[in-house]
């Protein structure tokens, strides 16, 4: 038996990219089916009823009228619900407490959605109000450290500060945000005895399986979760929220399959929010720009359901080499829905404060902002001095600034005007941690010569189908269009959630390992087959290319894979594998890096901002597929524009309700807001991180981007807005 490494490492397979996304055809024809779209016989519709007060208890729910309304099958409230185990911290009607406005408090099941919604209005709900915590600014002085984590410290902050020549001491803030993938959360649940079948819009089918199993006290094997396509996630579909369990509960009570799709307005609160941040930053430097002290304290809201921290100061620990550093996180308890991961949780918000502060410091020092970052370049991870697996941030700065034309920037703000437009340039560093986890896969070599890849992960729009087809094809040196990929089904080998920029780095090695094992089995079949020209060869000598097996030592000894399999009873070769984590992973630190530059035009009279250009260069290791990878990086940058200028969840401080819980007033960029975005990758593989050399790319695009825009607006106007989003009234009044 040959060790895996021997086949795996000597020659890196050549990479052939799929020219178009694996699932492109399904998506342009409307054939791609999302969770709510699977035909289900006898399906009923469930509607989630939400609390309209932010704090208190439900005194009573009179469901008499609702139960008698047309088409109603079941009404489930905390007063009649079957008891469930509560997985995590979701609200599944198991008690009468109300901790935020919008909290699910009942379910109405009817034969049509229209009837369910209509009947929901007939519920007579009496509340016992309690005082609510709704005003972050008023509550700020009562902030407390979170239950876990909190603060870090290195060096002697006081001493470093004392010798500083220049100090920036400012506060920055970012608002509450909601993910709002285009596809709302949706679940179809059907029971067959104690077996549960679910279509769910999710970033993690395994998590859904586990949570449902726990809630209903059945073995995970009894829960079948499917999700072939997820219409975007960005974090909110990475947690199993109430509605998924409530859909299964409703199906159980109504004794028929139930479809539950959240309304857009139900996406603001009940499925998690990115908490706001209030960041106090102190930067102290010597006259030559060397950072002596970096102090970053961030406070965010947390729900009363569970502590969740938007760890805005975390990436500050690793970004720059400062003599001293302190970071702290605090939370303010509020009657709002839970905080959760949202694209680059921590890094997206933290880079706003830190990278604007650095811009302010650069101006005070009269040092170019890029130069200031180079002066403080972290050669090793500043936390414990560990080496990076790979870091090419210098190349990012230089490549992006060249492509952008940074040298044309006027350091003094307000110098460039084109008609009514004030033009400005800004930049920031981008960064996101690289992680991976074990992931299993099955690879089959089919008698017709095609490959089948199955992984219990899901494609949330990131290109997972595409890169897995390529990974398997590359292992066989074959055309990736000859690979069929199945994802989004818990009967496939388990993987993890699609989040934290870990998917590509995790699932590709799993498929790679399974493909190598399948290839080895194929070689062994040939070796053992007396009719094969490869009979009796060594496995190391057997290679594959374009559907053929051949000997590296004597290339004319070859046959096609289909011939070999046909001769052997048309059998399918199958191998499963689970990727291993590198043994030396604790001796390195792995991050993705980037530099992002922005050009803005600010109207001198209306103060409207147009982001004209964004130019980013990223060090993300191997870019596995240029098409899908670049698209995703661009998407991250678009999120940066959105964060800088548009997005903000507004909470009414009297009623605790989100007042702009819709796409008309919760602004995300429309097409006209996005102009030129130029994204490149340095393209240096990080083989210390994983065998494909690839780190994740899902989050890094948003990091730094908002700060680059804020810095560009300052450069254009001389107005420093430290409170996001930078709406025109803030520029006007700054």
């Amino acid at each position, binding site marked *: 038996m040959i060790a895996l490494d021997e086949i795996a490492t000597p020659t890196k397979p050549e990479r052939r990219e799929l020219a178009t996304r694996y699932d492109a055809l399904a998506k342009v024809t409307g054939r791609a089916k999302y969770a709510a779209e699977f035909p289900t016989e006898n399906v009923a519709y469930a509607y989630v009823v939400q609390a309209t007060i932010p704090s208190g208890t439900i005194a009573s729910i009179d469901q008499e009228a609702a139960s008698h309304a047309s088409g109603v099958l079941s009404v489930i409230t905390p007063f009649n619900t079957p008891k469930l185990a509560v997985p995590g911290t979701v609200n599944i009607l198991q008690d009468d407490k109300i901790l935020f406005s919008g909290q699910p408090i009942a379910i109405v099941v009817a034969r049509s959605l229209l009837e369910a919604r209509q009947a929901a209005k007939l519920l007579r709900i009496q509340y016992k109000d309690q005082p609510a915590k709704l005003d972050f600014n008023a509550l700020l002085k009562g902030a407390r450290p979170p239950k876990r984590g909190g603060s870090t410290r290195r060096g002697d902050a006081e001493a470093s500060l004392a010798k500083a020549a220049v100090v920036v001491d400012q506060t920055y803030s970012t608002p509450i945000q909601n993910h709002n993938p285009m596809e709302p959360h949706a679940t179809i649940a059907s029971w067959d005895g104690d077996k549960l079948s679910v279509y769910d819009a999710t970033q993690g089918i395994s998590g859904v399986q586990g949570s449902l199993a726990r809630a209903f006290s059945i073995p995970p094997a009894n829960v079948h979760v499917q999700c072939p396509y997820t219409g975007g996630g960005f974090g909110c579909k990475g947690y199993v929220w109430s509605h998924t369990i409530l859909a299964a509960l409703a199906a159980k009570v109504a004794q028929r399959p139930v479809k539950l799709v959240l309304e857009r307005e139900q996406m603001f609160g009940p499925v998690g929010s990115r908490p706001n941040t209030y960041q106090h930053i102190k930067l102290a430097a010597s006259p030559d720009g060397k950072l002596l002290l970096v102090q970053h304290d961030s406070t965010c809201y947390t729900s009363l359901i569970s502590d969740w921290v938007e760890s805005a100061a975390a990436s500050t620990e690793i970004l720059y080499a400062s003599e001293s550093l302190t970071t702290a996180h605090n939370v303010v308890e509020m009657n709002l829905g839970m905080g959760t991961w949202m694209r680059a949780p921590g890094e997206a918000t933290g880079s706003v404060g830190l990278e604007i502060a650095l811009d302010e410091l650069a101006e005070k020092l009269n040092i170019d902002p890029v130069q200031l970052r180079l002066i403080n370049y972290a050669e090793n991870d500043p936390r414990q001095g560990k080496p990076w697996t790979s870091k090419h941030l210098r190349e990012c700065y230089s490549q992006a600034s060249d492509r952008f034309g940074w040298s044309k920037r006027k350091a003094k703000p307000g110098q460039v005007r084109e008609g009514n437009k004030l033009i400005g340039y800004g930049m920031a560093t981008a960064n996101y941690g690289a992680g991976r986890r074990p992931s299993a896969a099955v690879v089959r070599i089919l008698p017709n010569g095609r490959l089948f890849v199955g992984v219990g992960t899901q494609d949330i729009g990131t290109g997972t189908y595409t890169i897995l087809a390529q990974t398997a094809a590359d292992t066989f040196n074959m055309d990736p269009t000859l690979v069929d990929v199945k994802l989004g089904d818990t009967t496939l080998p388990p993987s993890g959630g699609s989040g934290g920029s870990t998917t590509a780095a995790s699932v590709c090695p799993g498929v790679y390992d399974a493909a190598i094992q399948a290839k080895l089995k194929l070689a062994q079949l040939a070796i053992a087959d007396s009719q094969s020209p490869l009979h009796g060869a060594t496995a190391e000598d057997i290679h594959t290319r374009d559907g053929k097996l051949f000997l590296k030592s004597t290339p004319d000894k070859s046959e096609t894979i289909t011939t070999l399999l046909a001769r052997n009873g048309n059998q399918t070769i199958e191998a499963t594998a689970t990727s291993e984590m590198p043994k030396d992973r604790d001796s390195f630190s792995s991050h993705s890096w980037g530099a992002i530059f922005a050009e803005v035009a600010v109207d001198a009279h209306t*103060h409207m901002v147009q982001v004209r250009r964004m130019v980013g260069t990223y060090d993300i290791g191997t870019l596995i597929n240029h098409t899908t990878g670049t698209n995703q990086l661009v998407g991250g940058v678009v999120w940066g524009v959105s964060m800088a*200028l548009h997005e903000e969840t*507004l909470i009414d401080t009297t009623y605790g309700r989100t007042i702009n819980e819709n796409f008309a007033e919760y602004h995300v960029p429309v097409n006209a807001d996005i102009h030129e975005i130029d994204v490149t990758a340095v393209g240096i593989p990080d083989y210390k991180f994983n065998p494909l050399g690839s780190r994740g790319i899902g989050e890094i695009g948003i990091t730094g981007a908002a700060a680059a825009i804020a810095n560009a607006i300052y450069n254009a106007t001389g107005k420093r807005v430290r409170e996001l989003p930078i709406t025109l009234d803030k520029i006007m009044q700054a």
Partner: protein
Amino acid sequence: MNPFQYQRATSPDEAVHAVSVRGAKFLGGGTNLVDLMKYNVEHPSTLIDVTHVGFDQIATTGTTTIVGAGVRNSDLANHEAIRTNYPLLSQALLSGASPQLRNMATTGGNLMQRTRCYYFMDTAFPACNKRTPGSGCAAIKGFNRIHAILGASGGSEGHTECIATNPSDMSVALAALNATIHVTGPKGKRIIPITDFHRLPGDTPNIDTNLKSDELITAVELPAPKFAKHSYYLKVRDRQSYAFALVSVAAGLEINGNTIRSAGLALGGVAHKPWHSSDAEKSLIGATASSDAFRRAADLAVAGAVPREHNAFKIELAKQSIVRAFTLAAQGVQA
């Protein structure tokens, strides 16, 4: 949404007769009414579909142009007569909503658009004098960045306060163009000047317009074009497209040499109705087209503005936008 009966009217008379059923409402493109029904703000018992009554023509007779109430916003904006003679109206229409919504929305329906006040649209807020008269106004002490600075009702009378704004772009242009609204009802036909069509909230913020509930808008009449060469619709908003105005300005100038012969000015996003300023218009007559004259007009247009906690910026923004819109209008329409 409550169940309702649907009836497709094939003539104006049939429509007017059908709407006499209590709770009945006319349905145009549905972009606002159906939306509000989904939010449970509107709950008609019957919808009378008036998109098949034959009001889909645009006709020029003599110097005036008559636009049928059923003409879709996109068709109106792109009609040759409108592009040529009333580019201000085209530009305003195209600034609103999205191509899809403009393909649906009708001229009559656009006039009937209700406010986008958050507190009005979400029935879980108990206080909204527009939705539930006498219940109060959650916006006054709430988040009121998008709300009115002019003509709002209120003072100490909590049960009538309302600081909602009218969201239409089209109506703002119509106000600057001095259009009239033709309506028909059981008591016959009448013509309402655009400036009298929408109401200020006064003591009855629940009533948006002076149209009676049994009256049907049949047409919009545009007077002889005066601003065909010099007009601009400037919409200031939180994103570049597909967003409601924080402030919008419909500015039209009739210029002889460098002297202004007449002017049209109306503002959107600042009041319960398109804010038409005769004082500002008059101040421009005989003046030289200059930023001084435009600034004077701007001051007059927003005179008496009352800021709320989050919308004080609108006063200065409106002034700057008026000057800008008139400046662009004076530069002339390029072909």
